[in-house]
Every structure is written in structure tokens, then in C-alpha cells.
């Protein structure tokens, strides 16, 4: 399956080729067959590319804004479903997995829904991975597992 478009997602942002990619020939990977009748993933986003929002990561927590529920009727089906699963805090990856959407599509739609006021993206809550207090909390929490 080839992807035609003017934008090359690998050119967006500051992406560089990983050094080891140049070291040996690319390994052929099996292509997955799209389900018959299922829309191609980027049809849902009108062909937009997930160069997207750097603050919407896999684990970023999303919640639905309460007042959005009364305004869902005008949204496309997939977007209504996204708002519905965000009733409790949920990560972007979980949204994608539970709704069987591709990750890139999910990031774009979450970004759209945030811009329209339906979702809260809790990106400012993300901690620095070198935050010592957080690391210690995780260590203590795991040690407490029985």
C-alpha cells in the first residue's frame, strides 16, 4: 500500500534517520490487508498527516469536558466515540486501541476535538523523566505490589 501525498511525514519536525537504518538493507515487513469495507485510516482525517501535535503523545491523558456531551450530535461518528471514551481519564494509545483507530489518526482527531473544546489534553501534567521524586514514587509503588 503506497501513500500518496505532498507531505512526507519523515520531513516534518526534526526527524533524522536513525544511524542503524543506513547500515543494512531494509527488511521487508508484511503488509496488513485492510478490512474489506473499512475506510482507509487517513480518510477519517481528510488526508492530513500526523506530523501533528508534539504535546499529544502515546501516554498523554485526555478527558472529556462535561459540557461537550450535549453537543455531540453534530460530530462525525468516530469523534463522538472518542469523546465518549474520555469520560474518565484515558491515554491516547488507549483511545486508539479501544476504538480500533490508527494512532496517527487518533492524535489528529484528539487535536481537533481539543481545538473545538470537547476534550482536555493534559500535556502540561507530563513530568520530566528525570524527575527524581516521580521515579521514587514509581519505585515505591512497584515495591508495594504483592
Amino acid at each position, binding site marked *: *500500500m*503506497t*501513500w500518496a501525498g505532498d507531505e*512526507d*511525514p*519523515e520531513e516534518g519536525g526534526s*526527524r533524522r*534517520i*536513525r*544511524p*542503524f537504518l543506513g547500515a543494512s538493507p*531494509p*527488511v*521487508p*515487513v508484511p*503488509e*496488513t490487508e485492510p478490512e474489506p469495507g473499512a475506510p482507509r485510516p487517513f480518510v477519517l482525517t481528510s488526508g492530513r498527516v*500526523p506530523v501533528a501535535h508534539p504535546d499529544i*503523545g*502515546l*501516554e*498523554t*491523558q*485526555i*478527558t*472529556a*469536558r*462535561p*459540557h461537550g456531551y450535549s*453537543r455531540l450530535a*453534530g460530530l462525525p461518528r468516530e469523534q463522538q466515540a472518542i469523546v465518549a471514551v474520555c469520560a474518565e*481519564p484515558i*491515554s491516547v*494509545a488507549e483511545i*486508539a*486501541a479501544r476504538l480500533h483507530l*490508527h*494512532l496517527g489518526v487518533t492524535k489528529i482527531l484528539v487535536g481537533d476535538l481539543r*481545538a*473545538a*473544546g*470537547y476534550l*482536555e489534553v493534559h500535556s502540561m*501534567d*507530563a*513530568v*520530566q*523523566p*528525570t*524527575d*527524581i521524586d*516521580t*521515579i*521514587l*514514587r*514509581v*519505585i515505591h*509503588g*512497584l515495591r508495594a*505490589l504483592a
Partner: protein
Amino acid sequence: MDSVLSREQPAQRAPVPVKIVVAGGFGVGKTTTVAAISEIAPLTTEAEMTSAGVGVDEPGMMTGKTTTTVAMDFGCVTVDRSLKLYLFGTPGQSRFGFMWDDLTKGALGALVVVDSSRLDDCFPAVDYFEQIGLPFVVGVNAFHGRLAHNLQDVRWALAIDDSIPVVAYDARDRLSVRDALLAVLDRALAKAQAQLSGGRP
């Protein structure tokens, strides 16, 4: 899309998410590892990935690009009321371009799962984590407590720095996985403390 909602609403609180990456080649036990400790049955998220086509670039001609769907299994552990640990397994394919940037961005560290009978499968992951300076531990998935090689042999074969732990663990056992993750967190802590004191991580 037009904005239809007022922004003057109190935001619902959400837990702070942190993540550890579980890496390694096909079939070494990444998903088993995640499943052993995750509160939820592992979920799978799929991502579209663009990879360079095989062949020679010719001037004036577009490079052939193909899109591939890669799948990642993941799970989570609630650390406390306001902190959730996500465990993301890497796609089985070893060449995956920029997807690894998304996976590893902001991660606490990584567990590189190794099957002692197929050590080379983990080389791309070890190389990558060393290059980006992400704390990691090599975890030899030991079946029924037996290893094909002892841990020193694994260390030598992988040619990794002495500071990187090589541990044996059982991917099916919750507490064993927990201990392997604690080893990763120890490395993360060491790096954070070194940076705080101004030393080289």
C-alpha cells in the same frame, strides 16, 4: 472545525502518566512481560509507518515509499491515585524509523528483553537506547529458570557497558517482571541523580 464550547470550565483532573518501554525482537516475550504485570489485559495500538522503499534513488525520480502498519502492545499499572505507569512494547520489526522517537520520548527507561538463544535480535534496541541516552536494562527471559548462556556470556556477546545491568527474569511472573522494571528504575534514578549533581549521567 469551529470552536463551539466555552473554555471557562474547570478541568477534570487526570493522573500523571509515566512510561517504560519494553523492547526486543520478535517472540522474545515482550507482550508476556507486559501482560504479567498490567492491570488491564494488554491492548494493541496500530500505527502507520512510512519506510523507505527498497531500491536505488535516481535523480529526478521519487523515492518509492511504502506504508506499513505496526502494532504495539501495551499495558498499565496504577502506581497511586495520581500516577500511572504505562508499559509499551515495541513493534516486532526491528527497523521502524520515527515511531521509536514517539515511543521513547519522555520515557523513564527501557527493558530490553532478550531470548538467550537469539541474542542478535536485541542489537537495534541496545544501539538505539545507547545513542539517545535512555536508561535501560537487559532482561534475559529465562524459561523455567534455565538459561542457554549464563549472564556473563550474554553481557560479553552484547558488548554493552559494564554499568548496564543484565538480569534474568521470568516474563510470565508478575513479581519477576516487577523486579526487572525496578532494575530499570534504578538506572533511571542513577541518571537523574547524576544530572542533578552535574555529573555525567
